[in-house]
């Protein structure tokens, strides 16, 4: 792996040029002759029975062409995985504010809205639940689907990890601490809102351009709910303006709505969400309440952990059983324990709904456990980094899940690096000597993390890529995994260029398209570089075999005698020949100039009852240090510096990796300090960027990042992953820094002005009114 020409070398994003010129067409920028505009009627109640739904008045509104409801779908449009509890449009009930009930297509957006307002929809309110702790009460109103196993219908999943008996072990520990931690829902806040464009085909099918992550899922959902065979439904992912986990389930509904409308109207139909719709109707990172108990010996050895938690999935399952599972695996942090237990229950409520969001359960638990680890270090009067170094996972360790880590564990190096970069030891001493009277106080805090690569034992883990050389010698690539802003296309390009030995400019990565790419599972879980990257590597290696054959024939030698320098093929005696000449010769020889590459992840297993196994085939590790200045008289926290060192395996596309790191940290900073939808009785009190605050350029500090490359032997060139884990440790590092600054431990996110100042939240009484108005904005 020496002398890599493209992988790990400076490179530029392959899709940046059109973006800086303003030429990139996102769904909302697409327009077709005869195109209609769609809008959905959305629930103004958190839980209600649909007593009456009459769409006929909408059809009388000038400009309205078609209206669809759940009756326009097979089986009322039921879909969803792992629990089939969602509908393309609400069926019989609505379970959260903003849930779509009917969709209207019209000549103009204004007419579509007029159509929505004309629909007669009588909602009969049902008792609702907004507190996750009450979801499983015997008399709690039913939110989840009927179930036959005798379990409470509002119970979704239980995710355990067990090793030994922590309750007994605590009795032997010198120090035991126990605290509660809470997180709130977080909005993805991608700049491009949700949207889709459906075009009916002459064959009676439909093509949908959908801003999403995983096009095969909506393709299959559309086939099922529209009753169409696979060849009649095609989903293409155009450039996506950010997703972070957020453009799946909700936008599958969008796909269903525009597809059904397009088929009915026999015209193209586009729907794009207003920001308010995006925030009110879209799913979120779920809220989690945790109780964490840790036991350790006076010498600083962690012994036992007991982690109990409830995770609020809101009105629908979406990915929550998987989120709860990932949360359970990561709940104890990247540390060794003699005994432990983790129990996470996932439940239904009527507060919006929770789905995938960067970090996927790990972000939530990390904010708890990494504070608890700091609190234990405090109790032991140990330096937080020393304490982590003493207990963190290393090569050769067995994790609490029972997994032997035999390679690629760079956490110690990450911790040592951030300690040095941040001048940790000096600052810890200096800040400890701040006078008690100082109103503005500095603090510095650390957080470590580990993050299982890819889906883990959540599901089948493989990906497929295709590669083809065309008549003009351009090389095209397809992958079933998408690039929604992450830089994956560039990663694929660099890997293919490295293997093929050609200039990356020759390579073009197609838009993900269910008609040309191969289903490779969902584009989630930071699995793209390792899964799709490996499949591109395999495809390129398969293709090169035919090129080597042609080169050997052209150079009249054996293939093993050839070596390549750049795009030159050099044999033992002849003059070098160019890659183009080899391709031409291969074509003349009748060799196939396309190839297919599949890569399956190493086998792993998880016992869901016993809570043991090998949850993931590899882990990302990392550590971040935050330095803050806390104004103890206003509660304002200024994040002055962040240092971040992550072990992502071999870095394939450095500039992209840094971009992911910095961006992830911005999500974590917002999560830690102010992002809050402030749900009251199911109604979000923030509906746009004036009230849902995400970090601006002024709020983000200059970040110093670096990578530890503890390569993973099965990764492409040794690569692991970066996207999600970049954000995971940021919030707890900031919270630990706040505690270091003013001694105040904020165990409820976000650490906003009031919490930092008073140690508690002050709640303004909200109302459903603004939410209802926001759903009908022109």
């Amino acid at each position, binding site marked *: 792996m020496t002398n890599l020409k493209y992988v790990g070398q400076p490179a*530029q*994003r392959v*899709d*940046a*040029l*059109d*973006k*800086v*010129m*303003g*030429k*990139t*067409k*996102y769904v*909302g*920028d697409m*327009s077709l002759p005869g195109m209609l505009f769609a809008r959905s009627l959305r629930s103004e109640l958190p839980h209600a029975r649909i007593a009456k739904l009459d769409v006929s008045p909408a059809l009388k509104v000038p400009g309205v062409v078609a209206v669809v409801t759940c009756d326009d779908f097979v089986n009322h449009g039921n879909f969803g995985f792992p629990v089939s509890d969602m509908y393309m449009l609400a069926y019989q009930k609505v379970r959260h504010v903003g849930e779509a009930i009917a969709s209207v297509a019209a000549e103009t957006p204004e007419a579509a809205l007029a159509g929505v307002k004309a629909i007669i929809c009588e909602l009969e309110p049902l008792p609702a639940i907004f507190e996750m702790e009450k979801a499983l009460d015997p008399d709690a109103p039913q939110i989840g689907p009927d179930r036959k196993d005798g379990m409470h219908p509002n119970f979704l999943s239980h995710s355990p990890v067990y090793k030994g008996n922590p309750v007994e072990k605590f009795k032997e520990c010198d120090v035991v601490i126990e605290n509660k931690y809470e997180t709130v829902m977080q909005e*993805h*806040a*991608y*700049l*491009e*809102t949700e949207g889709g464009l459906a075009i009916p085909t002459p064959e009676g099918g439909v093509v949908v351009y959908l801003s999403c992550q995983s096009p095969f899922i909506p393709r299959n959902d559309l086939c099922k709910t529209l009753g169409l065979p696979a060849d009649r439904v095609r989903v293409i992912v155009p*450039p*996506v*303006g*950010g*997703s*972070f986990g957020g453009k799946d389930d909700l936008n599958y509904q969008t796909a269903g709505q525009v597809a059904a409308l397009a088929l009915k109207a026999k015209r193209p139909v586009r729907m794009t969400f*207003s*920001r308010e719709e995006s925030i009110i109707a879209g799913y979120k990172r779920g809220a989690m309440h945790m109780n964490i108990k840790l036991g350790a010996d006076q010498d600083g050895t962690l012994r036992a952990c007991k982690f109990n938690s409830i995770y609020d999935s809101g009105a629908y399952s979406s990915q929550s059983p998987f989120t709860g599972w990932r949360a359970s695996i990561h709940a104890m942090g990247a540390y060794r324990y003699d005994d432990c237990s983790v129990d996470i229950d996932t439940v239904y409520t009527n507060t919006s709904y929770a789905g995938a969001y960067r970090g996927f359960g790990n972000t939530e638990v990390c904010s708890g456990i990494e504070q608890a680890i700091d609190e234990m270090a405090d109790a032991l009067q140990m330096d937080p980094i020393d304490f982590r170094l003493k207990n963190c996972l290393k090569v050769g360790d067995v994790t609490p899940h029972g997994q032997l880590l035999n390679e690629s564990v760079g956490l110690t190096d990450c911790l040592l690096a951030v300690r040095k970069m941040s001048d940790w030891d000096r600052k810890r001493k200096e800040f400890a000597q701040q006078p008690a009277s100082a109103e503005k106080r500095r603090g510095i805090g650390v957080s470590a993390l580990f993050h299982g690569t890819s889906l883990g034992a959540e599901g089948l883990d493989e990906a497929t890529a295709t590669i083809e050389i065309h008549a003009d010698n351009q090389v095209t690539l397809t992958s079933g995994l998408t690039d*929604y*802003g*992450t*830089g994956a296309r560039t990663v694929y390009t660099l890997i293919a260029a490295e293997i093929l030995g050609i200039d990356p400019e020759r390579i073009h990565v197609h838009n993900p398209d269910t008609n040309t790419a191969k289903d490779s599972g969902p584009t989630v879980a930071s699995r793209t570089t390792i899964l799709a990257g490996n499949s591109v590597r395999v495809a390129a290696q398969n293709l090169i075999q035919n090129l080597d054959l042609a080169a050997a024939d052209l150079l009249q030698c054996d293939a093993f005698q050839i070596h390549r320098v750049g795009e030159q093929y050099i044999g033992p005696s002849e003059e070098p020949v160019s890659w183009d000449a080899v391709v031409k010769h291969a074509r003349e020889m009748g060799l196939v100039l396309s190839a297919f590459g599949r890569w399956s992840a190493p086998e792993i297993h998880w016992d869901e009852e016993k809570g043991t196994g090998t949850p993931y085939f590899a882990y990302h590790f990392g550590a971040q240090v935050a330095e803050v200045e806390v104004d103890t008289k206003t509660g304002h926290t200024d994040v002055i510096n962040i240092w971040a060192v992550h072990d992502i395996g071999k870095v394939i596309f450095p*500039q*992209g990796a*840094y*971009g992911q*790191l*910095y*961006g*992830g*940290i*911005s*999500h974590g900073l917002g999560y830690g300090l102010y992002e809050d939808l402030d749900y009251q009785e199911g109604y979000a009190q923030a509906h*746009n*960027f*004036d009230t849902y605050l*995400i*970090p*601006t*350029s*002024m709020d*983000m500090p*200059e*970040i110093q990042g670096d990578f530890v490359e503890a390569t993973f032997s099965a990764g492409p060139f040794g690569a692991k992953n970066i996207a999600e884990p970049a954000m995971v440790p940021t919030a707890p590092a900031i919270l630990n820094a706040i505690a270091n600054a003013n001694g105040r431990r904020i165990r409820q996110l976000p650490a906003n002005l009031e919490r930092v100042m008073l140690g508690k939240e002050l709640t303004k009484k909200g109302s459903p009114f603004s939410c209802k108005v926001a759903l009908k904005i022109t």
Partner: protein
Amino acid sequence: MQINFTLNHKPVSIDAPTDITLLTLLRDHFKLTGSKEACEVGECGACSVLLNGEVVNSCLVAAPSVMGCDVVTIEGIHAEDGGPNDLQQDFITKGAVQCGFCIPGMVIAGEALLSIKSDPSRLEIREALAGNLCRCTGYMQIVDAIETTAKERAGKQNPQKREN
């Protein structure tokens, strides 16, 4: 109402409704989709354009009010050959682009800053971008790009200084 103004360095005249914003005028009537619609309340800056050389949120500007004004959108920013100008090239080179949705607004905000300040500090660049939200990048590489362009432009104006 007939609106006459200069759009991307060319005089234009268009009959448009009086109740629309400049953003709608640009996107729906001129089919210039580089300016993005992302909040429509002036908080995100994705719709930023230059109005008489100053950055404004086109979602908050009354379309007819640009009568006689000079409007430059991202489509009007490019090198003479139609390719990327130096700032746009630096956005590419420095890795400032991820999903790209905020980028037209960022380029506009960057140009607005560089038109009034040739040697901005990183903090001044951050202040100039404070009205442009980005959820992907954490802003680091965007600041890098604008800082680089500022230095390059300063270097071109003072070739001797550059050699030092």
